[in-house]
């Protein structure tokens, strides 16, 4: 296999790990060593030309070739069968709609979450149940970290340099979940977003870390607490609209479905009710007000909301379809809300996982 990457000769594991730290090629954790044998096995699983590029990774524009992605996937702990998921995630993030350049450099704390759907999730051991946003599962951890290492080494947005996130969140190490599709009464996310039933896909969405929502009871009670959680005044979305991810646990979903609620019904209800009065929003200060005016002047904030009337109730997204719903986590009292970056980007993009070139 013809590979073009620079060869590095080291004596042993310890020297290799320290070399990667010295050169700034890792995220703060030790890596799996990208030997030629491991990298070639990764590339072979993709059935693609090693020099095929998926595009330039912002902000510095390093080409995301299959070879470079494979090296970073090895470093992150991936097995060859994980690699098509990493490729699909990178393809999705490089879609202009996601605005990866902005996501990687904004002062906001959003990070691109990878959501895996389809039979592959169960087959490769992705966690979609208890502890779904946490640790303990190789597929979630390795795919999540491989994506982050590829962004790190090919895009070069470092926290001391062009990554301007003032707080960020722990998902910058790895941020990958699967949707629970068996214990789920509804169509999965990727099918809702246009993929065929039974297909494999990833969806990327740049968002804050999960906000816990104590969510249990009747649909009306669950919606009551979800709407309140979605429109906290600290969210960008309250000020400049955007997208939001709502994660319902399988018990929540079962209760909604049992009472006849579809995901579309929930989405519409949340959009109608997760609102704040303009007077409350204005009380946040002049900077917030300025951002909203800026978005209005640029034509990105709908004119149907009267921004001179303090009783106007402002939504958190422009449409119900900007509220994404997935089913994941343990059957319990807890759901989660993950607000996006606002109207600036990081929007959800879904891409099918391809098993050949």
């Amino acid at each position, binding site marked *: 296999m013809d590979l073009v990457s620079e060869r590095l*000769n*080291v004596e042993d594991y310890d020297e290799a790990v320290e070399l990667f730290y010295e050169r700034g090629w890792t995220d703060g954790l030790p890596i799996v060593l990208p030997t*030629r044998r491991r990298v070639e096995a990764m590339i072979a699983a993709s059935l693609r030309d090693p020099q095929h590029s998926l595009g330039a990774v912002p902000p510095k524009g390093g080409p995301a070739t299959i070879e470079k992605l494979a090296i970073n996937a090895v470093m992150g702990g991936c097995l060859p069968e994980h690699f098509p998921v990493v490729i699909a995630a990178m393809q999705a993030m490089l879609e202009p709609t996601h605005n990866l350049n902005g996501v990687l450099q904004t002062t906001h704390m959003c990070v691109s979450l990878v959501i895996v759907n389809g039979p592959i999730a169960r087959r490769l051991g992705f966690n979609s149940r208890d502890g779904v946003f946490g640790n303990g599962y190789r597929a979630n951890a390795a795919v999540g970290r491989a994506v982050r290492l590829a962004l790190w080494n*090919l895009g070069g947005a470092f926290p001391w340099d062009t990554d301007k996130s003032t707080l960020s969140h722990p998902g910058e190490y790895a941020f990958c979940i699967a949707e629970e599709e068996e214990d789920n009464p509804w169509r999965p996310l990727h099918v809702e977003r246009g993929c065929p039933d039974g297909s494999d896909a990833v969806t990327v969405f740049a968002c804050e870390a999960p906000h816990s929502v104590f969510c249990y009871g009747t649909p009306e009670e669950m919606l009551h607490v979800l709407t309140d959680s979605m429109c906290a005044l600290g969210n960008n979305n309250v000020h400049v609209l955007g997208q939001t991810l709502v994660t319902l646990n399988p018990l929540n979903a079962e209760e909604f479905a049992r009472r006849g609620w579809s995901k579309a019904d929930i989405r519409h209800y949340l959009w109608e009710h997760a609102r704040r009065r303009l007077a409350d929003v204005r009380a946040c200060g002049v900077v917030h007000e300025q951002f909203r005016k800026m978005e209005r002047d640029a034509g990105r904030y709908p004119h149907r909301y009267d921004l001179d009337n303090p009783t106007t109730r402002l939504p958190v997204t422009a449409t119900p379809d900007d509220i994404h719903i997935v089913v994941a986590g343990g059957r319990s009292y807890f759901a989660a809300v993950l607000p996006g970056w606002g109207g600036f980007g990081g929007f959800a993009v879904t891409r099918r996982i391809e098993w050949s070139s």
Partner: protein
Amino acid sequence: MELLSPVWPAATASRPAKTRPRALSGIRIALVDDNLDIPFTTHLETLLTERTGAKVRRLVKPSGTAPSPPALLDDAAASDVAVVGIGL
């Protein structure tokens, strides 16, 4: 043990810098509008025009949070001076 590098080699070539103009009067200034604070940018455009006597061309980015398209960069590079970032 042989390993493979996860990064691309650093670029060695860089564009030569343009000669700094001695004065702003009469020169061409490209004002890259990042499409965020439009009233502020309009005010800046007016001030630059009125106070310096420069010929100001406003080039509007499609999005303030995404990179400028290559054609816009080429357009800005054809001017004597370009304002490419406005802090908010």
